[in-house]
């Protein structure tokens, strides 16, 4: 089936450590920005999908969708919280798209939010680890960084790739992160600096790992006719949404599984949108750890298995390359506010298609974008395709 | 008569710098140990017991009883012997006995094992004494485990001979109720150690008709000078103790002490060797004769003692601090 879900408005908070703001403050800020951008009143929102992963652990609060609904003033619209590990924000977006595409609702809001820095890193690490089987597999002292480090070594072993080869991905992300005013980490770095940054989980080093970030991002979605009726607004539509699941265990997650986690839903998404991988101008690919970017590039069909790391080195995934991958700086620079991330990716792609991305990040004449979000050890694959479709 | 059919030992890999500990706390004098064998942060008396037992069992699972002796069980209200048995996948119907033991606990366990009519008995002495900060220099807190397979019926490589005991009412090392820090007076400890041990050795000689000086080797829990002097009066010679001493190398391993000395003695023994096991704890001394009937296959206990990897002072305290307040 084909799908046209209008993106009426977008909004995001800065992505950084924000001790002065609560989870509630972040959600309200992003939600209000999106509604202001959409030119809608809270009473026009008919359903609120909130992506939020760890409020019970990070903030000692629960039922955060109800909290957001009250404070955004969208009552009596229905509000529900979505959780699918790091794929949470993308899942909220999926439900928003489904709600519009089904014809049941005219206008809905998707809000991803996470407040991670109320706790020390060691506590946060333990909470994040609960997105895997923390009582069985991670019983052995694994964490998300170290679990992914195992994937990185597997990749290096299988394709004969060195740590230096992989370091180029961080260099590229940090080049753009430095230009992103709402990014958490804003500095450029060299391959040497990546290699010399402290080890977090061998072979992953600090510059290959995302920080813990406080942020929220929101989108107001609407039926195609509503956006068409406002031709002076940027005509950006979500034209495909496709979700998949994979293994919940690092030990059983092969490189083929990692490939299929994106390959399968991406194949469906391309079909749904009627485009191919070659048509994509700009992509936001989940990279809480640098290794996940080449895996994503391969899964989305931009490179063959084992070749995805090359683009950052030869320039083909830079802003003016064959395809711009993570011109926002990716999660490595924006940080990874778990529940917000998928929504932030969407907001960033919409900015690209609107032509309003910050200076130094804008892909020229971007018309078709894709966002790929993953979650768990190898568990969530979430693909969305966005298109600028004038008239 | 009960026999030993197998034995094993575990000495942790890490060596704490006793000299540095003494210097740090301004304690004068030469350290009484070269270093302290220190279990790593993820080891305790159960895990060490597991290692020693596995070596002793060599895959054997037909064990009728498990007796553990330790002053430092990792948990209370739960039996170390039964947990060890489960970890080793032994018969859960086996007799499980826990001894809250000081150094003579191993010989107590031998005595019990000899009377049990349940087939082979796994006797394990395991300990990790932890003392507060500067007291480490006195207590020489170290850890190790030893395990012996005792078979009342089968003829093993050594026979567990008679035991003799002697006791004094002393307050050398003691605790009141739930006190965390043991009170001790080293001079009282060593004085009593020497006197009572000699009385036990003498009593044993009366039973076995073998003079103390005529054993191939003597395996004492601690070869303290006071003990050696007292035993010397009974005719003991330094060369009987040379091969079985280890406290000067790795420290005091509590309930595992006699076991480790026995392992050293057995490793060096041959058919016809006679060993005198001597343990002292809390005012009581136990002496036991062990006769080697066939040269045992050694386990390389001296190598375990001589090996090891030094750790820093800070690492030692990071691994041991707090173990006294918490369950070990």
């Amino acid at each position, binding site marked *: 089936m084909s799908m046209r879900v209008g993106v009426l408005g977008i909004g995001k908070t800065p992505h950084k450590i924000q001790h002065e703001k609560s989870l509630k403050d972040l959600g309200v800020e992003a939600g209000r920005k999106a509604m202001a951008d959409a030119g809608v009143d809270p009473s026009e929102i008919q359903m609120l999908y909130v992506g939020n992963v760890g409020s019970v652990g990070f903030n000692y609060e629960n039922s955060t969708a109800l909290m957001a609904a009250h404070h955004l003033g969208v009552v009596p619209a229905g509000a529900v919280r979505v959780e699918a590990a790091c794929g949470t924000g993308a899942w909220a977006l999926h439900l928003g798209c489904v709600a519009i595409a089904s014809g049941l609702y005219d206008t809905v809001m998707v809000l991803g939010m996470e407040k991670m820095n109320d706790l020390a890193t060691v506590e946060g690490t333990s909470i994040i680890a609960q997105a895997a089987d923390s009582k069985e597999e991670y019983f*052995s002292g694994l964490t998300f960084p170290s679990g992914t480090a195992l994937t990185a070594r597997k990749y290096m072993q299988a394709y004969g790739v060195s740590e230096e080869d992989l370091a180029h991905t961080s260099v590229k992300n940090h080049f753009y992160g430095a230009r992103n005013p709402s990014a958490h980490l804003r500095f450029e770095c060299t391959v040497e600096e990546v290699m010399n940054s402290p080890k977090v989980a061998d072979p992953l080093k600090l510059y290959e790992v995302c920080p813990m970030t406080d942020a929220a991002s929101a989108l107001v979605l609407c039926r195609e006719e509503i956006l068409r009726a406002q031709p002076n607004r940027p005509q950006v539509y979500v034209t495909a949404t496709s979700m998949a699941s994979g293994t919940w265990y690092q030990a059983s997650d092969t490189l083929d599984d990692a490939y299929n986690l994106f390959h399968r839903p991406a194949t469906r998404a391309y079909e749904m949108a009627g485009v191919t991988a070659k048509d994509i101008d700009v992509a936001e690919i989940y990279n809480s750890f640098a290794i996940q970017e080449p895996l994503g590039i391969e899964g989305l069909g931009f490179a063959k298995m084992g070749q995805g790391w090359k683009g950052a080195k030869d320039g083909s995934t830079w802003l003016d390359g064959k395809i711009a991958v993570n011109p926002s700086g990716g999660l490595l620079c924006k940080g990874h506010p778990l529940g917000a991330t998928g929504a932030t990716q969407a907001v960033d792609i919409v900015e690209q298609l609107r032509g309003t991305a910050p200076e130094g990040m804008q892909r020229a004449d971007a018309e078709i974008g894709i966002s790929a979000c993953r979650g768990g050890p190898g568990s969530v694959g979430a693909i969305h395709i966005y298109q600028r479709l004038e008239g | 008569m009960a026999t030993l059919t197998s034995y094993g030992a575990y000495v942790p890999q890490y060596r704490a710098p006793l000299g540095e500990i003494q210097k740090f706390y301004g304690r004068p004098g030469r350290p009484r140990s070269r270093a302290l064998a220190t279990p790593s942060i993820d080891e305790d008396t159960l895990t060490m017991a597991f290692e020693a037992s596995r070596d002793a069992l060599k895959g054997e699972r037909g064990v009728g009883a498990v007796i553990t002796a330790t002053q430092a069980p990792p948990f209370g209200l739960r039996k170390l012997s039964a947990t060890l048995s489960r970890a080793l996948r032994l018969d859960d119907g086996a007799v499980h006995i826990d001894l809250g033991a000081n150094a003579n606990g191993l010989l107590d366990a031998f005595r019990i094992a000899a009377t049990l009519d349940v087939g082979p008995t796994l006797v394990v002495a395991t300990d990790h004494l932890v003392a507060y900060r500067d007291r480490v220099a006195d207590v020489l807190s170290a850890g190790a485990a030893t395990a012996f397979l005792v078979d009342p019926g089968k003829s093993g490589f050594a026979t567990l001979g008679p035991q003799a005991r002697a006791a004094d009412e002393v307050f050398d090392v003691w605790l009141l109720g739930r006190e965390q820090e043991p009170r001790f007076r080293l001079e009282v400890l060593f004085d009593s150690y020497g006197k009572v041990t000699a009385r036990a050795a003498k009593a044993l000689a009366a039973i076995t008709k073998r003079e103390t000086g005529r054993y191939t080797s003597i395996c004492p829990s601690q070869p303290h000078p006071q003990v050696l002097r007292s035993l010397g009066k009974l005719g003991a010679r330094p060369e009987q103790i040379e091969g079985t001493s280890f406290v000067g190398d790795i420290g005091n391993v509590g309930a595992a002490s006699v076991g480790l000395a026995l392992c050293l003695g057995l490793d060096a023994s041959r058919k016809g060797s006679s060993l005198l096991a001597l343990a002292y704890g809390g005012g009581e001394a136990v002496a036991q004769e062990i006769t080697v009937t066939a040269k045992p296959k050694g386990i390389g206990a001296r190598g375990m003692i001589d090996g090891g990897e030094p750790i820093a002072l800070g690492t030692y305290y990071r691994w041991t601090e707090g173990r006294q307040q918490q369950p070990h």
Partner: protein
Amino acid sequence: MTVSAIEFTRLGAPKLHLFAMKCGKCKELSPWWERSHCYKCGHDTLTEFELAGKGEITNYTVVYYPPREFLGQEPYVVGHIRMDEGVTLPAPVMGVAPDAVEVGTRVAATLRRMKLGHEGDIYYSYKFVVDDDPAPKKTAPARRAAAKTPAAKTPAAKQPAARKPAAKKPAPRKPAARKK
């Protein structure tokens, strides 16, 4: 993470033993957590299968930032251990410096404290240490697992296969029924 006494019982005890789960149909060995269905063929009856405790490091990482329960142990090595029986398990490898770990090293299981829980509760489990025996011991495992292990599966014969990179030849692990 707060752990209740009930949960502690549920999680703690089984980890004193080193076992895999064996599929009643396709005989595939899976890690201990696969209790609901076989990840390879989908069959729903699996039984505990005791492992002899020896294997080889096929992949590893070094954890520098541990979860709270592991504080004090860092940096520590966690490896993927391919057991001689064929199953791969994640487990810490002790006594090896972080910069000296090597894929292909033979390791043997031993009992250690895995972590300390919220209330000082001790979790025991298997960790691995470098196995000094070049070839796996024949006596102990053979006798121990005689009832269950097929004798033909000698670890020596399996070693080269374990080292082969898997990626060249994709071997989809998912049953056809799951592809939709």
